[in-house]
């Protein structure tokens, strides 16, 4: 498909410019204002037969509306008005070329109107597929080698050598390598490093690691250098010695987040309202809301803190949803834990409730299976079921508020479009006892394909097997990605 239009459209544009298209598009295709919607609502009927379709078009020469069931063609022939606009999609039909034609300039107008419309309706911009620019198209033509990604591909699956109880690191590396958005970021080489070549930037190391994982080679990788780097940084930062996958996960995010500061990434690591905007924070950071309510005056004090994961108590057998329900339940703090109320100006008993104010793109759950106390260290093996698809709506601050005032959130027009569904994409398991244990990870590859990563061994697994596993760390990815109106 070329986007140079046709000679008829070019002649039309030379005589009348792009304004006729702009006006038809802004009022009847993508309404950019309320006024435009009023016009569209009342006048999009065929001038010939009075019906609203099928496939309404507007004549570009005289703004005559007619249906595609014959009436727009009739008008075009009798008036010799050869160009007409499809009112559903904004494409232009040329009756002389006898097909829809595509013009770069008009297409840009169409896109800008669509963005404006989305903004005016409060719809976040949907995902726009990648289209190669002229440089990229040329590079693709020059590079003849193609790698076809089929639904059964095993590309990206490589084992990791165990370098002496490094399985707790291996399982986290496997999880990160199979985090869809992180993979997209690194394979698109979005990290542009200031410290390039110094060999000190960990983000660069991870970037190289992604290339190795997806190179097509199948032999297990050895992670000496990367693990050494993360490990020394993490130990330096947290001063901890435990070989725990969860701690390693958090330490890795922390180290990468710090090293992102070296980068001059395309989106810029600018801080928005004090929050870091690096790739790690874009993917993993959510906002946890804490409401403390004074039992005397019912005054509420609210704070919101960023989080990278949610640690859930495992009391006994149960489900992830039940754990989350408990996590977000209002809790009476009791007389031993009075809090100073700013309204009453004295210490009062209060209730505290945690809810999720904003959701991260990747929701990570840590089931607290290890109990460390001064008396004993023990592992809780209780079975906690977790689903492949999870809706986070019930645990959100906005939802809890709506439930409290008895409103039915589902009928609000915004409620219809709010989408908080997540899909499971990785599970880290700890098998064995506290001191003689071993870590493995299940990762999702393509849609519905699961693999078990046990150090250097990668074996195919079923979803059933994944869901039946004990579960120590659970990773969910947002099912639908929304894009900010402004960002596009």
């Amino acid at each position, binding site marked *: 498909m070329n986007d140079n239009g046709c000679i008829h459209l070019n002649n039309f544009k030379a005589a009348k410019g792009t304004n006729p298209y702009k006006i038809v598009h802004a009022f009847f295709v993508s309404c950019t204002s309320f006024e435009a919607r*009023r016009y*569209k*609502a009342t006048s999009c009927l065929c001038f010939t037969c009075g*019906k609203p379709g099928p496939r309404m078009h507007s004549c570009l020469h005289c703004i005559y509306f007619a249906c595609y069931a014959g009436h727009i063609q009739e008008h075009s022939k009798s008036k010799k008005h050869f160009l007409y606009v499809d009112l559903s999609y904004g494409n232009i039909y040329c009756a002389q070329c006898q097909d829809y034609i595509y013009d770069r300039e008009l297409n840009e107008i169409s896109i800008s109107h669509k963005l404006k419309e989305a903004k005016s309706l409060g719809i976040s911009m*949907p995902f726009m597929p990648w289209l190669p620019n002229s440089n990229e198209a040329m590079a693709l033509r020059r590079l003849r080698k193609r790698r076809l990604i089929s639904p059964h591909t095993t590309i990206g699956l490589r084992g990791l050598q165990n370098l002496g109880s490094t399985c707790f690191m291996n399982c986290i590396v496997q999880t990160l390598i199979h985090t869809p958005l992180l993979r997209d970021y690194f394979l698109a080489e979005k990290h542009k490093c200031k410290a390039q070549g110094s060999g000190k930037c960990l983000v660069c190391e991870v970037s190289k690691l992604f290339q190795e994982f997806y190179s097509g080679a199948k032999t297990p990788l050895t992670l000496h250098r990367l693990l050494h780097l993360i490990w020394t940084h993490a130990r330096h930062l947290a001063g901890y010695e435990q070989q725990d996958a969860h701690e390693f996960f958090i330490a890795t995010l922390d180290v990468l987040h710090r090293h992102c500061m070296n980068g001059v990434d395309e989106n810029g690591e600018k801080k928005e309202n004090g929050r870091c905007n690096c790739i790690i924070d874009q993917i993993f950071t959510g906002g946890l809301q804490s409401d403390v309510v004074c039992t005397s005056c019912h005054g509420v004090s609210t704070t919101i803190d960023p989080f990278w994961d949610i640690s859930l108590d495992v009391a006994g057998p149960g489900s992830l949803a039940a754990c989350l329900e408990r996590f977000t339940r209002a809790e009476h703090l009791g007389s031993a834990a009075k809090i100073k109320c700013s309204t009453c100006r004295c210490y009062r008993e209060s209730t505290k409730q945690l809810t999720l104010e904003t959701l991260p793109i990747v929701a990570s759950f840590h089931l607290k299976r290890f109990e460390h106390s001064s008396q004993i260290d023990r592992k809780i093996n209780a079975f906690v079921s977790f689903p492949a698809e999870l809706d986070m709506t019930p645990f959100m601050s906005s939802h809890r508020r709506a439930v409290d005032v008895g409103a039915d959130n589902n009928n609000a*027009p915004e409620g*219809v479009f709010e989408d908080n569904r997540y899909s499971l994409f990785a599970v880290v398991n700890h098998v064995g006892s506290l001191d003689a244990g071993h870590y493995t990870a299940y990762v999702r590859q393509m849609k519905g394909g699961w693999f078990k990563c046990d150090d250097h061994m990668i074996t195919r697994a079923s979803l059933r097997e994944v869901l039946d596993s004990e579960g120590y760390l659970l990773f969910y990815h947002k099912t*639908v990605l929304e894009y900010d109106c402004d960002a596009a």
Partner: protein
Amino acid sequence: MTVNNTIAHQRLVLSGDRERFRELLRRRLIECGWRDQVRMLCREAVKENENSNVTFDMLVTKVTPRARALVPDTVKKELLQKIKTYLLTQKDQ
């Protein structure tokens, strides 16, 4: 379309909710892989007619019946349910 239908339709357009529903449908069709499937159907249709000039209308006639059949029931159900609920709440106002 009856008069009542026309009014309901106009309201939907005016409030912007028609566009919201359309966007919701578009997203669901992308998510479930329907759009990719239809793309493949189009590609096949173009390949079959490689030596003649394929027009948009030819593609529409050829692909539409199969594309319609490929829309998953879950998507249809969700949209129907949401539009129904929406129209019922509108009636009360």
